[in-house]
């Protein structure tokens, strides 16, 4: 199990308002695989005033569990530093949300 595999599982979590997955939105800051059955994730939200954080954390855990049933411990920590900016969005997300000529 690699970090990329975890990110792939997490990218099934879609922000319901904008329809873009949270990995492409740049909300996932860190993925640490401690051992074969434990994962630590650091993620952020675009706004501190948004009440969706717990829902998204639950979804992240659910989607990892779905793909890797042998993982027993998933810790998701909500962090605010560094603050999210649109520079963290992937090119795919930007394209989906109408940015043109982005490299």
């Amino acid at each position, binding site marked *: 199990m690699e970090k990329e595999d975890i990110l792939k599982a997490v990218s099934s979590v879609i922000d*319901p*308002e*904008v*329809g*873009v997955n949270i990995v492409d*939105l740049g909300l996932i800051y860190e993925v640490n695989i401690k051992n074969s059955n434990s994962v630590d994730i650091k993620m952020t939200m*675009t*706004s*501190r*005033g*948004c*009440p*969706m*954080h*717990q*829902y998204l954390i*639950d979804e992240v855990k659910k989607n990892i569990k779905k793909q890797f049933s042998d993982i027993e411990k998933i810790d998701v920590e909500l962090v*605010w530093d560094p*603050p999210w*900016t*649109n520079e963290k*969005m992937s090119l795919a*997300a*930007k394209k*989906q*949300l*109408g*940015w*043109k000529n982005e490299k």
Partner: protein
Amino acid sequence: MKNKILLFLPFILILLLSALYTALLRLGFNLPEFPAGAIQHGPLMVVAFLGALISLERAVALQLRWAYFAPIFIAAGSLMSLVFNLGFVGLVFIVAGSIINFAGMIYLTMKQNLLFNWIMMLGSFCFAVGNILFASGMAVPQIIFLWLGYLILTILGERLELTRMRPISKKQINLGKFLIYGFFSSLFISLASVHNAALIFAFFYIALAIWFYFNDIIRATIKAAGQPRFTAIGLLFGYLWSIIAGVILIVYGFQNTGYVYDAFIHSIMLGFVFSMIFVHAPIVFAGVFRQPVKYSNRFYIHLILLQITLAGRVYSDLVIDNLFRQWFGFANVLTILLLFANTAFSVYQGKKES
């Protein structure tokens, strides 16, 4: 109980049902009396139902124990004064709750010092001031702009937050800022001269609706599918109704009672605010109450019905047809109930599948 937030749900529903029941009384249906009187319809909708729901949403986001006193006090105070007519003490609770809500927004803005939080904080300030004036005995039409301002600034702050995912020039942001501050100033001018303020309000509100039409993330999400597209269509209706409300205000001037007042208020409350609520109900249920809602195209039924019945209501108001106004108003109430039925069914479906 594992999910304590769910304890709020029955109270919020009672406040909404009270607001809807008093709506029917205000429309002239011959129904048993309401303890606090039909006159509380506006306060029940804005202060009780929306005030409690929005402050709960903020408390969940802030994850601070004290912030929950805002929805607790607002809901308890509303039940005391606006539902059961138990006198002044409930109004004191409402004021206390709205000041805590404002304090929560100050905390949030200090933690994340960005324009959209400032806008929502200004909205919560309008709510607190409006509620203090309401508790001191000022009539609803005198403070209506502060209350509307609270809801509009809260929604526009949230929309502005999402525009950060869009490529927007600095020039556009500065224009948006100017429009927001102009709009905010009209809310307080209304306390000195409501008729002059109404024109300023109308101008900035229309301009803001146009600004958001061009800059909101809906420009991209309307081309998507499923829930993002549904949300975008609801917002699009919301901006359209904002323009209609502004035009009504410019053409007829501000009237503090009667048919034109009804048309103006409901263009904003149902057209803008409830269109927003209709499309965000799945997100609120998932985020605040942690009850995932399975999105369904069936949701378009209540969204479109809201637009049709509101158009009928506003048209009947403007041509002064009381009978049609009454029945379109009744249909508005049914549409809101349908929203809850549809959403509850989708929560049930979601649970069954998971």
